[in-house]
């Protein structure tokens, strides 16, 4: 499986993501500079976490307007899988590739801790290695992860099975509406999520629950 990670000024979990992709897929992803107008042809494009442009103006807003993102949008439309984690999720909503917005955490503080995620839809390229309803561990680390969408959008997301993950067992760390932790686009090839599966993939991390996400993509590519 081939993948690419887009690097923005201020990205800081690019390194973690590259390492996770390398570890799980066996291939080192291509790192693409945000000024590059064309991404390579890959099976998965990842927008990593961090503070692109310092989170200034709005999280992800400035990065969403970079040249690389124009190509990400084109490729997403053409069906290429796109994963945005944390800041990557924020960039995807700012770029209009996912609906809604990520607001400041309800308690207004940055939060870094482990939460529980329930796999709501496992019939996707990103979640097929998990069981439906399975509860996994996963860390979060963000200041603006409080997902918001207007009632109509929300109803559509829920009805169409586009909520991929929900915070489970009372662990919603940020006030997200409907405990939403990750959502899909209409076609199902774009996933945005706040938690960091790339930080729970080896014994050192104290668990392997995050591997399933990357293994899902491998399975999807092979299928």
């Amino acid at each position, binding site marked *: 499986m081939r993948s690419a990670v887009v690097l923005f000024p201020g990205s800081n979990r690019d390194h973690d993501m590259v390492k996770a992709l390398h570890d799980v897929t066996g291939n080192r992803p291509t790192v693409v500079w945000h000024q590059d107008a064309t991404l390579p042809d890959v099976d998965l494009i990842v927008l990593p976490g961090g503070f692109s442009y310092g989170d200034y103006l709005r999280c992800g807003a400035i990065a969403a307007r970079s040249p690389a993102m124009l190509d990400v949008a084109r490729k997403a439309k053409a069906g290429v899988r796109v994963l945005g984690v944390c800041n990557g999720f924020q960039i995807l909503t700012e770029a209009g590739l996912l609906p809604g917005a990520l607001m400041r*955490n309800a*308690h207004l503080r940055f939060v870094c801790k482990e939460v529980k995620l329930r796999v709501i839809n496992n019939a996707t390229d990103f979640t097929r290695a998990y069981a439906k309803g399975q509860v996994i561990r996963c860390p979060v680390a963000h200041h603006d992860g*409080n997902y*918001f969408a*207007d009632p109509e959008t929300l109803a559509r997301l829920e009805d169409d099975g586009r909520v991929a993950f929900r915070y489970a067992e009372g662990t919603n760390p940020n006030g997200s509406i409907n405990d939403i932790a990750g959502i899909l686009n209409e076609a199902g090839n774009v996933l945005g999520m706040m938690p960091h599966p790339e930080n729970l993939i080896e014994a050192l991390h104290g668990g392997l629950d995050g591997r399933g996400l990357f293994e899902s993509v491998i399975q999807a590519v092979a299928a």
Partner: protein
Amino acid sequence: MKVRVTITLKAGVLDPQGKAIEGALRGLGFAGIDGARQGKIVDLALAETDPDKARATVADMCEKLLANTVIENYDIAVLG
């Protein structure tokens, strides 16, 4: 030419910061607060000298970057 863009959240959009401000003000003993909403301003200094043109350019900036029109409204004031 100086232009001030005021960006506010649309009605109905969750405003955690506004809510927290309201709570904090109550906590400080201020009574009679019926609500608080927060927003942003961006003050721009532009080379443009024609107010109408400046306004049009800034509207374009808002649509393209300054505001997230999914959740925000913007208002442009040319300050001269």
